[in-house]
């Protein structure tokens, strides 16, 4: 479903992603793990056509991101790390804009939106402004929105950050259902190792722009002689604290110059 070959990306001469290759099969729940600044977000941005790779190729759902960006875009849904809703609009209106941008017909999206809002338990808040929603409700709405155009792949970039255990649990239950019933391929990043352990059948660990290990949670533990994914992760990536690197370093540098 996703085929990545020899992917590299430099920012200001610093190589943030170095010759990364991996593949994700249809129906996989693929966890992409790594410390801050390891290159996760940069990789996701390349996979989702927001950033051009310097070298290498990405094929998603049979389409090349370089030559067929719009077909790639139609093939995936994404829940970004930060909110991406228009808070001055209602839940339904946010969904409607998405439907139109993705070319879903009105006769189709009217019922589809209501179905999805029911799935994420927001049907009764359909016509409320998003600015009155809690963090968890916004997240649920974003997931519903990401599913609106029947994507083949769902990208989740740290989807549970800042959410309470109840909401996290609920979110993962939706994702599992979607994966099992509709066969959606899921590509996720998270810092919560127990979530990756529970959800993912395939895990890749990236550090300093390289993929340093790949396999199921059990395989990673066996290779590193550890008893949990967290231990395996720490053994592979070391326990030193990371300063934010990559683009974040750029972000911080520009903050010093008065821009954010």
């Amino acid at each position, binding site marked *: 479903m996703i085929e990545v070959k020899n992917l590299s990306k430099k920012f200001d001469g610093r190589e943030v992603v170095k010759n990364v290759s991996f593949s994700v099969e249809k129906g996989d729940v693929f966890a992409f793990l790594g410390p801050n600044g390891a290159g996760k977000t940069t990789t996701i941005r390349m996979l989702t056509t927001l950033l051009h790779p310097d070298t290498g190729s990405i094929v998603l759902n049979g389409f090349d991101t370089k030559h067929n960006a719009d077909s790639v*875009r139609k093939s995936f849904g994404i829940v*970004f790390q930060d909110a*991406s809703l228009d808070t001055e609009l209602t839940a339904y209106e946010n969904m409607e804009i998405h439907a139109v*941008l*993705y070319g879903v017909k009105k006769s189709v999206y009217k019922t589809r939106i209501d179905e999805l809002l029911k799935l994420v338990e927001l049907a009764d808040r359909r016509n409320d402004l998003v600015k009155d929603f809690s963090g968890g409700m916004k997240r649920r709405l974003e997931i519903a*929105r990401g599913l609106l155009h029947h994507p083949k792949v769902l990208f989740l970039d740290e989807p549970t950050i800042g959410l309470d255990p109840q909401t996290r649990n609920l979110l993962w239950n939706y994702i599992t259902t979607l994966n099992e019933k509709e066969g959606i391929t899921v590509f996720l990043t998270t810092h919560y190792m127990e979530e990756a352990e529970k959800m993912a059948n395939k895990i890749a660990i990236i550090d300093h722009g390289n993929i340093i290990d790949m396999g199921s949670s059990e395989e990673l533990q066996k290779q590193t002689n550890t008893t949990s994914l967290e231990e395996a992760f720490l053994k592979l990536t070391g326990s030193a604290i990371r300063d934010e690197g990559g683009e974040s370093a750029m972000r911080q540098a520009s903050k010093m110059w008065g821009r954010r």
Partner: protein
Amino acid sequence: MSTIYILWKRQLKRYVRSKSRLVGSLGQPLLFLVALGFGLGPVYAAAGNGNYLQFLAPGIVSMAILFTAIFGGIEVIWDKQFGFLKETLVAPVSRFQIMLGRTLGGATVAVIQGIVVLILSIILGFRPVLSHLFFALVLMFLLSILFTALGTAIASVLDDMQGFQLIMNFLVMPMFFLSGSIFPLNNLPGALTIITRINPMTYGVDGIRGALTLGNHLSLTLDISVVSIIALIFLIIGSYLFSKIKS
């Protein structure tokens, strides 16, 4: 087409819903009409120029358009910060369509705002000539497009609102004050004449004034041509810079 329409509709919804912005944005034009119109009116009349409110009102209508339209374009920065922009940039539509939808939406809001100020000035005693009203509306629309596109272009290269004050003080305010909105353009010092001539706002104000009171300084044809051409140029620059936004 539907992309442009839905993003246009979004701008209108946001405008209609923020009541405080609606009311707040009328405060300034009202203040200018009352303070300048009635305050400087006697001096203007004593100098033999006639009714100042009659001269001023089209200028204040243009001012409302300038401020609203620039702000409508600058709103791209909010979308960057609140993340909504990413949602549109990752969608399978061209950035040109996104930019066009937003710009048309922002421009429509600015035209509405201009019409509201026009009505306000009529209540205060302004008496427009109705025969050329169509041209006034066309110019209001073109001027709105021009400034929304300019705002979008600026917002595309800025990352936050910190630069906003700079833009207000060094771009928007000079464009307003040095355009003939509040004073006649005849017998100005040479340098000021040059500045007013390179200011696109001048042609908008003159055209709207010409259409509403038949008191042009330049010709209506020149005004409409200049405003259309500059609007087109800003649209092109704006779409280019918008397409270069790093998400």
